[in-house]
Structure formats: C-alpha cells, structure tokens
C-alpha cells in the first residue's frame, strides 16, 4: 500500500512538473512582453528594464522556471533593497494587473467555484441517476424512450447556449429569477440561492443527461447478470435484491467517472462562470488570459491540473475500497 501510494504520488508530481514546464515554456516563448503591457503608453526603455528586473523576467528561462518552482515550495523574494517583497510559500507570484498575491486570489475565488461544483454535482447525480434508474426499470417503454431522447438532447446543448436561453426565458421574459449577483450566503441566503440556481442547472444539465444514459446502461447490464438471477432464485426481499445485487454493482463504476468530472469542475467552469459573471477560478482564468496576466494563467493551469491528477489518485483509491476484485499491487 505504502509503495503503491509512493509510486502514484511520484507520477502525480511528475505530471504536475511537466504541466508547469510546458505552460511556462509556451508563455515564455510565445507571449508578448508583459513589461511593455504594464508600462503602458508613456514608457521609457529604462522603465521597461526596471519592470523586467522586478518581475524577474530578465533572467534566462531555466532560472526563471527554477525561481517559480522554488517559490512554490519555499517562497521567494521580489525586487531588492527597500522594494523587497517577500512572497511566502506557496508562492504563485503577483498578478501583473492588480499586484495581488495570486495565491490569495486563488483562495478568494475557490469558494465560488466549489459552491458551483458541489451544487451542480448534487443536482446532476440526483437527476441523472434517478432518470437512468427509472429508464432501466421501465426498459423499452414510452417513458424510457422519451427520457433517453431527452437525454441526448440535453447532452447536445452547448452550455453557453443553454445559459443564455435560460437567462432570456427566466430572467428577461418571465422574470422569475433576478440577474445573478455575487452575494454572500450569510447576507442574503435566498438571493444567493437564486443567483446560483441557473449556473447549477447549466452545469448539471449535460452531465445529468450523460449520467442518465450511463446509469441506464449499467443497470440493464446488471439485471442481465447471472448473479442477479441467482439473487432472484434465492427469494430475497425485492428491496434487498435491488440494493445489493443491482444498484451496488451498477453504480460502483459511476463513482470513477463522477470523481473525474467533479475534479475537473473544481479547476473552474470557465464558460459558465464567464457567462454568469461569477467570480470563480474559471472567470479568473478567462480574465487572466484576456489580459495576458502570466502568473495567474500559470496558477489556474496548475490548479486545474492538480485537481485532475489528485482526483485520479483519489478515485483509484476509492475504487479499490468499493470493488473487492481490485487490489493494490
């Protein structure tokens, strides 16, 4: 177990390192000079050089990359003398745009993204699994066919189209919901809920439809399994038969997919957050890209990759606990 974990963590660190390196390389080579952007229109060459020195981008690539990495684990100092700024670990640098600590920005935005992800995940699990179960039990009926066709439709709507359509119908036309605003739950719980409702629905729709189809397929496969026939031949109570011999085997594989989807969502729902103006990680990513704010781009890329690889390991561990046939070597 310890050896397995060590191996997995090594792999995880390696992938994150590569993501860092790759992202850093791309921006180092491709992006326009951030110093020129910060300096603005009235700019002197001396000022540019000064900014470059403060940002640390006058150094060679590998030195810069090393500074970035060591900053992550040990913190780093920017500038010198009286201008010296210490950035404690985990140091992701300072935004070129706002001079805020990127780590602090991430911490500020993460709750919004987490709220979005948790709400959407709850919604799509409930809706998707219920729909899939009903369809599986009523396989071949009118309900099954319409539910599955609806699911194909729901999975085909691009989320920004759904977002705009919902906003038009619910906010502009019917005026059931207010325009989403970023209020704290503690200030106005009802408004908070109303603000998050549309983003939750938009994020959950596509996934719910996929999960419905997946659940249906898995349950139908399980009902055809020999061990389900055995369970029926044992004369168990129907509830027990369904729970132990149909649901447990059918839903266990869904845990894997759910874990990965949820982890990916924690890295920021870029489009949904942008469309609804939610100040989460996704919007931070979009904004930073639009303004070429390299430290922030690095941070969001790294964060998203972190969630994906950690999610991967967590899912594997959970799966070994859930499926007795899977054993850690």
């Amino acid at each position, binding site marked *: 177990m310890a050896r397995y974990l060590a191996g997995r963590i090594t792999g995880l660190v390696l992938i994150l390192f590569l993501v860092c390196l790759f992202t850093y390389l791309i921006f180092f080579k491709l992006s326009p000079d951030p110093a020129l952007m910060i300096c603005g229109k009235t700019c002197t060459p001396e000022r540019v050089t000064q900014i470059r020195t403060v940002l640390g981008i006058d150094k060679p690539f590998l030195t810069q990359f090393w500074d970035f990495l060591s900053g992550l684990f040990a913190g780093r100092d920017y500038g010198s003398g009286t201008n010296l700024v210490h950035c404690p670990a985990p140091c992701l640098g300072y935004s070129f745009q706002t001079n805020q600590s990127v780590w602090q920005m991430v911490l500020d935005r993460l709750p919004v993204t987490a709220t979005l992800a948790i709400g959407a995940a709850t919604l799509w699990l409930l809706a998707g699994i219920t729909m899939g179960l009903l369809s599986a039990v009523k396989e071949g009926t009118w309900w099954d066919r319409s539910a599955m*066709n609806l699911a194909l439709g729901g999975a*085909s709507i691009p989320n920004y*189209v759904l977002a*705009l359509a919902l906003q038009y119908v619910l906010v502009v036309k019917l005026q059931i919901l207010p325009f989403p605003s970023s209020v704290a739950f503690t200030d106005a719980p009802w408004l908070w809920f109303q603000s998050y409702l549309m983003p939750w629905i938009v994020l959950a729709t596509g996934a719910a439809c996929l999960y419905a189809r997946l659940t249906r397929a898995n349950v139908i496969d399980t009902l055809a399994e020999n061990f389900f026939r055995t369970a029926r031949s044992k004369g168990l109570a129907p509830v027990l038969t369904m729970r132990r011999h149909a649901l447990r085997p059918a839903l266990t594989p869904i845990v894997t997919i759910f874990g990965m989807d949820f982890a990916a969502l924690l*890295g920021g729902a870029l489009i949904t957050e942008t469309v609804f103006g939610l100040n989460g990680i996704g919007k931070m990513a979009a904004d930073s890209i639009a303004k070429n704010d390299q430290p922030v781009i690095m941070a969001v890329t790294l964060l998203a990759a972190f969630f994906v690889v950690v999610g991967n390991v967590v899912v594997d561990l959970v799966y070994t606990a859930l499926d007795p046939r899977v054993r850690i070597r």
Partner: protein
Amino acid sequence: MTTAFTHDAQAGTSAGAPGASITPGRRILGALRHDRAALLSASFLALMVLMALCAPLISALTGQGPTQFDMAAIDVDAGGLPKGAFGGISAEHPFGVEPLNGRDILARIAYGARVSFLIAASATVLTTLLGVVLGMVAGFYGGWVDQVVSRVMDFLMAFPALIFMIAILSSLPTGNRSLLLVAVISLFGWPYLARVVRGQTLTLLNRDFVEAARASGASRRDLVFKEILPNLRSSLIVMTTLAVPGYIGTEAGLSFLGVGVSPPTPSWGQMIANSVTWYAVDPLYFAIPGLFLFLTVLSLTVLGDRVRAATDAGEAA
C-alpha cells in the same frame, strides 16, 4: 447431429470475429436505414453540409454577402436594432439581420457552417490518424515505446485542455486561425482515441487468429494492415462519430470565447457571443445561431448513438 434450435439465446449463433462476410460499415448503414431519428439527423446534416457548400450560391441568390453591411435594414434611432419584427426578417433577409451593421444572418450562418464543418472534419481526420497510429504503435511494440506514448497520453489528459487552448490561441494573435484551431483541438483529442486503440490492439494480439498469422510467418505490415486494423474498424467508426459533435462544440465554444476564427470571418460561436449584449431586445439574433449549433450537435450525437447501438447489436449477433 441436428442443428440446435436457438431460442434460448435470442441473438442467435455468433459469427467468428474475423472474416465476417458483411463489413461493419455496411451493416451499420443497413441498421440506420430503418431508424427514423437517425434518418432525420442524417438529412439535417446533409442539408447543413449542402448549405455550407452552397454558401456563395445562397449569397448570390439573396444578394447578401456575409460581411456586407446593410444600413437600410437597421433603425439607427432605435440604437441600431433591426427594422421590423423578429430581428428584421424580410424577403431580402430570411433570417433577419445583425443589429448595428445589418449583416445578413442567413449568409453568415451559411458561411459560418463552412468554418465549423471544415474545422471539425479536419480535427476528426487528424485525431483519428494520430490516435490510431500512436495507439497501435504503443500496443503493438509495447516496452518503452508504450511507456512513452502512455505517459504522453496521461499528461495530455491531465492537462486543463480548455484553459490551455484559450491561452495558446489568445497568445498567438497572428497566423491561420482555422489551422491553429484544428491543431489545438487535435492535440488534446487524440489520447482519448489512442487509449482505446491501444487496449484493443493488446487484446487482438493475444487472439488466436493473430497468433496464427504470426506463427505462419506474416510480416509486421501484414499483421497490422490485414489482422489488426480491420478488426478495429467497428470501434473506430463508433469513436469517431461520437467525437465529431464534441469538435463542433469545442470550435464554437472557442469562437464564443473570442479565441476562435477572427472576425469578419463568421462563425456560429462568434455570432452567439456577439448576440449576448442584444438578446434581451433582439432574441432572434441569439436564437438562430444557437438553434443551428444545437441542432447540428444533436444530429451528430443522435447519429453517433445510433451507430454505436447498431455496432453493439452487430457484435452481439
């Protein structure tokens, strides 16, 4: 001995995997011909492709180019809204015009379809090529080759693709946008196909008929082209048809975020993005490209789903 009456297994007797007389392609087509949803989707897609191909013809017929301003069709006093109801739908402009500049929406939809389809088709070809070649190489050679390819796949799949696509596209303001889009979509798309191809290649290599071919001294090229590739055909058809709607959606999404094809070249995603500020007063400006995008993705998804169902049924038989 008399042949068994096969009603216990309704699917009937199974044909051996290699050497089935009907090709999977033909069998799938045969099954789809009797499916109303599949036929409807296919007809809609055919219509879209036709529209994309005939975009210049449509422009010539209506006399409206995709980038041609028509100030007569908009009401400057009303803040640039199209004149008339329903987004300015009229004989000259069957789908109405864009606010502010009066560009014809039909022409822009038709020309936008060209961009979307071209990018999605190219991305499909490129991903399939990369996925098949790299997946087969990894499965076939194993060892360190497999290790390298597999690690690259892990890396690309862990990478936050959307963030990175946007970042890479926005930091490259010049150059051929369409080509760049195809490259970026394919770069992050091929591992999903390659993973499946690799797995199936490994399974096939252990199957009797491949081992028999090996034992009888078949060359590597024969093994790959005569034994493995033909048996991957079914899953390739399924994987690619299921992936195409994703590419259409990704292209539209990137254009929606402003990093796709650059204006004035029209694209559906870009039109939807432009409509955001207008949708409260001119909902059709948003609804028309939104509907086209949705119906196209839906048709492709339905088709992909039915192809998969037909393949599954074929394999069970």
